[in-house]
């Protein structure tokens, strides 16, 4: 297997494992962490493609994605804490009555 192919294999497998984790786990924080894993897989594929084509724009995009991911987690965790203070549970199934 080629180096680029191996890295893409790692990237898509990380994405698939993260997606599986979001679906099968019941804890909200674990689901958030699995989403971070999916994002890491995408970043790895972006770095690999940027290396393959020899452009710097991929690296710039990766840097911007890091910043956006930090902002995302800074918003997501207060929302999770707010939900937990209301219902006193981290189970995703307990929030099935949320609409819109």
């Amino acid at each position, binding site marked *: 297997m*080629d*180096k*680029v*192919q191996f*890295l893409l*294999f*790692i990237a*898509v*497998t*990380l994405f*698939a*494992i993260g*997606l*599986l*984790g979001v*679906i*099968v786990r*019941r*804890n909200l*924080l674990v689901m*958030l*962490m*699995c989403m*971070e*894993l999916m994002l890491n897989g995408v*970043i790895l594929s972006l*770095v690999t493609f940027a*290396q*393959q*084509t*020899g452009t*710097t*724009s991929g*690296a*710039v995009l*990766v840097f*911007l994605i*890091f*910043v956006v*991911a*930090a*902002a*995302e*987690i*800074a*918003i997501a*965790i*207060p929302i*999770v*804490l*707010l939900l*937990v*203070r*209301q219902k*006193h*549970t*981290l*189970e*995703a*199934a307990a929030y099935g009555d949320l609409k819109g």
Partner: protein
Amino acid sequence: MLETFLGNLDKLLLVVFGLSALVAAAMMIVLRHPMQVAMALISTMVFLAGIYGLVGVHFIAAFQVLIYVSAVMVFMVYVIMLLDVRDPSFTRRFSALLVPGLAGGALLLAALAWAFWHGVFAPGGGTAAYGLQPFAIAFLNEYWLHFELTSVLLLAAVVAALAVIKVSRNIHG
């Protein structure tokens, strides 16, 4: 013998780091407590930083460790320490979607294996390493507007986090 081993050391390390990242990611599905899951995610991220260092983008490896492992995951670990460990989601791992999720995951992996088998991902291409200097020149010459927009996004995130805290205070007094 030693020369061939040292010549192939980067490939060996790449495979070791990649497979370790996959194993740590699989542990995230299996482990029970969120703190263990966070530790598995941190090790996945550190292995990915090793991969970035091996393919020659050292500054992305540094960003990965500084931003993801330090900032994001330390925040996550603090939040897990804040929460109640007697929560039922801490003891029962999987939701009711376990069987359809596993079936969908198996289908996705089969589709990916098919794609690799038929060569959808083109091999080869230059894996030229570029340093910080071309990145910095491209970053500040062409992408300065995007950089400013992300700073606006970070400001919006700070304001939104404060608003969430205010909502929480209004509800709970």
